[in-house]
Every structure is written in C-alpha cells, then in structure tokens.
C-alpha cells in the first residue's frame, strides 16, 4: 500500500468538530482509508448489516457509535475479515481499504491484516514477554527474527510511540500479561505499529479501563491520528465527542448518520441520533 496516509486533507483540523462545509485544499481528494458500499452481512440467516456505506477519511479519528447489538463490532470485523473464521458469515457489497478491494479473491489475509491493525475490547497481549509482544507482528511479516540492533530500534520506536517505553524499558523480558490493563492496551496498539498499518480498527478499546487509563489511551489515539486512520467503536459519548473528527451513528445494522463530530453532537440531522446522544437508547 504505497499511498501516503498523511493525505492532503489533513490540514483541515484546527479545532475538533470543525464543520465540513467547504472541502479544503481540494487538490487531490485522497481515497478514503476505508470505503464500504452496499455492505450487507449475514450470520447464518440473521442479517447484521444492511447496505452500509461509510467513508473513513485518511488520518482522522472516526467514532462508530450506536446501541449494543447494532452491528458496530460486526462492521469492524468485516474490514479486516477476522469474522471469516466463523464459517457461517456471508458478506455482500464492497469494502475498500486505501482504495484496494478487500473482498477480492486474490486478497491474502496476511498483507490485509498488516495494513489494517485491530485493537480489541479486552487487552489481549499474547502470553509472551513484552519484547516478544511488541515485535510479534514485525517478526511475522519479515518471516523471522531480525538483527538484534534493528529489533531493538523497532521495538523502542513502537513503544515510544504509544508512550509506554519509559514504564517498561527496564523489564522488557517480563510477561506482558503482568502489566496493568492500561499498559497492556498500549502494548496491543504498539505491536501493530512496526508493520506500518494504514488503518487502526479499535473495538471499545477503553471499556475495560478505568477513567484515568481511558484518558491516557484517548490522548494516545489523538497523537496517532494523522499518521494512521482510526476507526473506533465507543459507548462513551464524551469520548466520541472529545476524541474524534467524525462520527458514524448506527442503529439496527444500518448507518443512520455520518457527520463531523461537531455537527453530530450539536445539530444531529436525525431524530434517532439525537435520541441516542441524549441517552434515550440503551
């Protein structure tokens, strides 16, 4: 994926939630980081997604909100095709990541998942040392361990990027599962970075964390924004409002509204959106 994720539209962002009125610097409309069209998905006979069309812009944080069971995780998991392991999932429509078809027959899952990193609700570091966790994807994608110096550099860079380096640099051989949840979640983000993903998918990454840790991870996301395009599912309205550029509101498998965060929270276009934001759904 040669496209530079720091696409031209990046400069628009001064304060969050700026209205999207005029397309700024219209020189080259970079292809969306993620684009779905007429995406329908069935678990067996049960249809979980209906004609989902979304465009996730490059270098932005896009929040996916909606009540439990509306299909947020399903949508996320169809983008890196991790839900295929369930034999009974059927997908129709198109999904593109950085302009490339994800569902085509000749797509290999390994490069797809290198380009599309995923962070789960419960931090799930592997039962290995911190070092081996941070380097897991890196080694996987280069087909074995690298030279020690290179590995050290790669690991330090990734851990620096997620603001974890100072806490763990003296205990890199400790088991990752012994870290605090906040540290574990940061490590789970860090392990994605060495293979230079374009897109990060995050499924309620903070819901297992306490408020302070949540805040720390949020700040981290805001820092990673620009270099990576982030699609994050959240139940936390305050978080969506604070830490995202755009919001997508889903209800019962459909996208109801997609607008800039400012618009969504100040002047929602749909009554359903307004009801949800004000806490009138679960």
């Amino acid at each position: 994926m040669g496209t530079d994720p720091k696409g031209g539209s990046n400069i628009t962002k001064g304060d969050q939630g700026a209205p999207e009125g005029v397309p700024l610097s219209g020189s080259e409309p970079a292809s969306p980081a993620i684009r779905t069209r007429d995406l329908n998905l069935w678990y067996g006979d049960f249809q979980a997604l209906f004609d989902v069309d979304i465009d996730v812009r490059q270098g932005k944080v896009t929040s996916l909100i909606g009540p439990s069971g509306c299909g947020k995780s399903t949508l996320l998991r169809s983008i890196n095709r991790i839900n295929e392991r369930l034999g009974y999932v059927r997908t129709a429509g198109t999904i593109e990541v950085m302009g490339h078809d994800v569902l085509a027959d000749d797509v290999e899952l390994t490069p797809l998942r290198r380009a599309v990193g995923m962070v789960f609700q419960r931090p799930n570091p592997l039962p290995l040392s911190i070092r081996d966790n941070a380097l897991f994807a890196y080694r996987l994608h280069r087909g074995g361990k690298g030279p020690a110096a290179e590995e050290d550099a790669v690991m330090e860079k990734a851990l620096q990027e997620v603001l974890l380096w100072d806490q763990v640099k003296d205990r890199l051989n400790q088991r990752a599962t012994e870290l605090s949840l906040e540290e574990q979640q940061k490590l789970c983000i860090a392990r994605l970075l060495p293979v230079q993903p374009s897109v990060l998918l995050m499924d309620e990454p903070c819901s297992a964390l306490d408020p302070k840790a949540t805040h720390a991870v949020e700040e981290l996301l805001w820092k990673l924004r620009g270099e990576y395009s982030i699609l994050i599912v959240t139940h936390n309205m305050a978080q969506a409002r604070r830490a995202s550029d755009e919001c997508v509101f889903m209800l019962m498998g459909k996208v109801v509204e997609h607008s800039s965060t400012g618009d969504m929270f100040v002047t929602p276009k749909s009554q359903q959106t307004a009801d949800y934001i004000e806490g009138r759904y679960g």
Partner: protein
Amino acid sequence: MSQPTIEGFGATPLDIRNRRNQKAIRLAFGAMTIMLIVPVVIILALLIARGYPALSWDFFTTHPVDNMTKGGILPALVGTLWLVGVALIASVPLGVAAAIYLSEYASDNFLTRLINLAIINLAGVPSIVHALFGLGAFVLFFEFGTSILAASLTLAVMTLPVVIVSTRETLQAVPQSFRLACWSLGATRWQTIRKVVLPNSISGILTGVILEVSRTVGETAPIMFTGAVFFTPHLPVGVLDQTMAMSLHLYSVSTQVTDVPEALPYGVALSLIGMVIVLNSASIAFRMHLRRTKKW
C-alpha cells in the same frame, strides 16, 4: 417511621432443620469418599506386606529361572518398557496431529462430528477386541508376526482416542482471545498454533500422554496375542522380537505356573504398580514445573 425490630440472631426451627440436614449430607458424602479410598489402601497394603519380601536388587536385574518359580523379572521389565516406548512413538505424533487438526482447523460439520463420534466409540472398545484386531491387522495382514511392533501398534490404536481427546481438551483450554490476537496480526493458523497455542498447551498435552502411558503399562489382553510371550530367555533387541511383559508375567506366575513361592506374584504386582506410580509422579512433577513457569 421506625425500622422493624429484629429478634436477634438465634436459630429458628427452620435453621435447626437446615443445619441437621447439612450435617447428615456432609457425613454421608464423606463416608462415601472414604469407602472409595479403602480398597486402594487395602490393595496397596496387601501388596506391600506380601510382595516386599520378594523384592531385591537381583529381582530387577536377573532372568526368571526354574520354570519361572525363582529368579527375577528383568526380561518382563525391559519388555514392558519396549512395548510402551514403541506404542508412544506410534500414537503420540498421530494423536497430537489429529487433535490439532480437529481443534484448530476442522470446521464443525457432519464429517468432523462423525469423526468425533468414532473417537468416542473407539475409546469404549474393550481391549480384548483391540487384541483381536491387532492379531488380524498387524500380526497376520501386515505380517509383523508376534512381535513388539505388532503389540505396540495394537496398544497405540487402543490409546489413540484417549490421546486425541485429552490433547484436544488441552488445546481448547487455550483462551480464544490469544488466537484472535494472533490472527488479527496476520498470522496464519499454523503460525498461531506454533507460536501461541502449542507453547501454552504443551504441558497439558504431555501430561495427558504420560498418564496414558501409565495405563498401557498394565494392559494384558492386547499384547498377549500380538507380541508378548510367557517366557523367553532373551532380552528383546529390536521391534520384530517377541518379548516378555510385566502384565503377562504377573498373569502367568499367578495362574499358569505351579510351585511358585507366595511372595513372587505379589512382588511382580508391586513392581508393576511401582512402574505406574513412578510414571504418574513424573508427569505430575513435570506439570507442576511447567505450571510454575507459565501463567496468563
């Protein structure tokens, strides 16, 4: 306007009845547990009391003499180790591979359900039936003759289902979140198995295997028709040799040979149990060692 008063915390008739029931149940279940241990203790005590006098260094290091009424058990001891070792070499790779396939690769469809059913039923087949199968398949059809190879393969077929089931259970105890994490990072199934699933289940797999071994040590029927003989003056030197075995030796000195000193069969039985206990303790010690070094 005021809180209801309470009578204190003394026992009501209901409490007294509950307490009595609880005591009775506890007593009954405890008694059953003890009844369970009693036979084991009696057997062991009897074996030790009667068999201990027969044990000596020579007992383990010499051949039987005088029509098996004197001498040691060396050929049976060595033969059993051969039988179990070869059976392991045959059943473990096959069983573990099958378990990995069933747990990590196979999707849940008609065929895999059929396979599971077959495995469960295979585990329930009586060992004498395995013996006849081994005789027909390995001794006669494949023309291995009565040999360690034929006997061990029969034992392997017999233990295979148990190895598969215990391995599969161990694999399934590895949290799914590890696999998901691995896959989401772009690992193939095999990479996931090798880097994460196996390292976290190897102790359980080995434990199951070793426990299984200890069970095969005592098997008599499957080896009787296929490779074990009552008496041979030679120690086995290869898999096509016949051999003596502990279980069969116990059977013959107890029932087939006359004028055996009383302590001898008990000495053989005690040695057989000793082998099993040594193997089991080794597996438990090994498991504890691995448990200590790993946690998630």
